[in-house]
């Protein structure tokens, strides 16, 4: 997704104004002119100016081009689903890994992505299982990262 600079500029200007306004609610530092609000305000102001320039430049240089440009792959449903699946996989992991556990979440995510991206299902399952166990062994055992056990808790 590519946008005309003006579109991005407008979004950034809104963000900048929000930063500045919100920063004004920060309490002042007793006996000091410079408090917690100083840096966010300065950064917000600079962002406001820079994105305003971006808007002007975007409008001047537009010359009839579209406000937003979608790369050719966005018209191919397969690719759109690919990106969506990657994002969904991470979101899913964030929400269910604690309850389901690392082993099952990792296996499902890997196997789904492999098969969707065109790996043969037999190879996909084998690599998904192998990768899951290697990561579990390496991070879980060797590095002592407390990977969520999830459903394993029910068994033992």
């Amino acid at each position, binding site marked *: 997704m590519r946008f005309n600079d003006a579109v991005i500029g407008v979004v950034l200007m809104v963000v900048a104004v929000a930063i500045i306004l919100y920063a004004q609610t920060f309490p002042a530092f007793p006996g*000091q002119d410079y408090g917690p609000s100083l840096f966010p305000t300065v950064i917000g102001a600079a962002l406001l100016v820079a*994105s305003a320039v971006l808007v002007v430049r975007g409008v001047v240089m537009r010359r009839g081009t579209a406000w937003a440009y979608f790369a050719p792959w966005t018209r191919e449903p397969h690719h759109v689903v690919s990106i969506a699946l*990657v994002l969904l996989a991470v979101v899913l992991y964030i929400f269910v890994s604690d309850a389901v556990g690392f082993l099952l979440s990792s296996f499902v995510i890997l196997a789904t992505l492999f098969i969707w*991206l065109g790996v043969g299902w037999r190879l996909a399952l084998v690599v998904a299982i192998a990768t899951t166990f290697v990561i579990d062994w390496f991070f879980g055992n060797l590095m002592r990262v407390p990977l969520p056990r999830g459903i394993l808790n029910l068994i033992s």
Partner: protein
Amino acid sequence: MDAVATAFGLILDPYVLMVMGLAAVFGIFVGSIPGLTATMATALLVPVTFFMEPVPALAAIVTATAMAIFAGDIPGALLRIPGTPASAAYTDESFAMTKKGQAELNLGVNLVFSALGGLVGTIVLITAAPALAELALNFSSFEYFWLACLGLTCAVFIAAEEPLKAIISLLIGLFVATIGIDPAAGFPRFTFGVVDLMAGVSFIPAMIGMFAVSEVLRGVVDLQGIGRPTQERIGNIFRGVGPVCVRYWKNFVRGSAIGTLVGALPGAGADIAAWISYAVSKRFSKEPEKFGTGHIEGVVDATSANNSALGGAWIPALVFGIPGDSITAIVIGVLYMKGMNPGPTVFLQNPQFIYAVFISFILANLLMVPLGWLAIKSSKQVLNVPRNLLLPIILMFCIVGSFAITNSVYGIVIMLAAGVLGYLMEENGFPVAPAILGLVLGEMLEQNFMTSMIKSEGSFIAFFQRPIAGVLGVVTLAIWALMIWRGLRRTQAVTA
């Protein structure tokens, strides 16, 4: 000298050597696969090195990045796709040589001069860093404030193509750095009551997101991007390298010097070093018309430059805590995690760690020749690893790695947000490196400003009253003035 002996002892430990060996293989693999960068190798390594002692952790990063920057040349020559952005400057030249049947010579020159360039960067690092550290011992919050300003300015100044977008990227990074407890008054900013955000945006997951997850997102829609190597069999790569050394030694010296310098400037790393030195090589060549037709001269300059930039980037990182490139930005995060806060005092308190970094740099560049030879020989297999298997595995690695840093899904949330942001930024032509620099330097900037203001009781003049601070301040303001002037002229040219 005791510290040097200790450092040798630390590095020549079998465990450390094994870690370096594995890191080297990992670096070569990541570097030679197009789309996977040296920065990504570092970001993925950090969770792995999280529980190691400082020396093997740093040695692993040094080794992996050195190998990755060299290995990026391999697909450049064989597929016309740079393995890492650092090889992009001379990919066309290398591929033109391959088409002329000179793939062996090209790869041999890339390997030998990568190693030599890396050694030059290391030597400069070894000589310059301790001397600068001695100077930096006298620095106070005033000098550090200006240094941070200069570092941020460099990031924008060097990105000459789109300075405005670089500035915006930088501001985004600086803003993200203000999230969390503020350094002076202890007030939670922009946390919206979320406890996890109080400690700020965790840096390593953000890097993993920006440099690895965004690549995965780009990669899954472009699985067929890679063709087959044009040349399947690789002969003796070292034949003909000798005469090139004799003929183009000046190019090597110049390329390494430019590379080290560019590397040491904050915000510019191996990729920009290669572009600049390639351009310089063409500009001063006796036969500029041969450039682009498969001529080895520019390759010598550029391949030396990108490896020497790695060493150069560690100079400001170790001495001032200001990263020279995005790799050392991660390294600074690692140093803090290991309790060795970068700065001149590390050179006094833990000189053995600093020397250990130096030694691992030398060792890595020596190891590069045999391992690089093996990598070139097995390039056919490495380049054929299917991407549809690789990308999901990398994604899983990112998830677990980010989790490992915070021990909670909070790390994964940051990774995802940074990944999407990084993807959208790159798609729209905003460079990511300035945002990273802003994120790293934001707190340093604010902390030193606030400390200085408290010391000077609110007088801004104090920022110019100490000699070094004054010079740094004037230089910074002069560069800003120059940038605004250039920007105005450019706008006039566009609107006119």
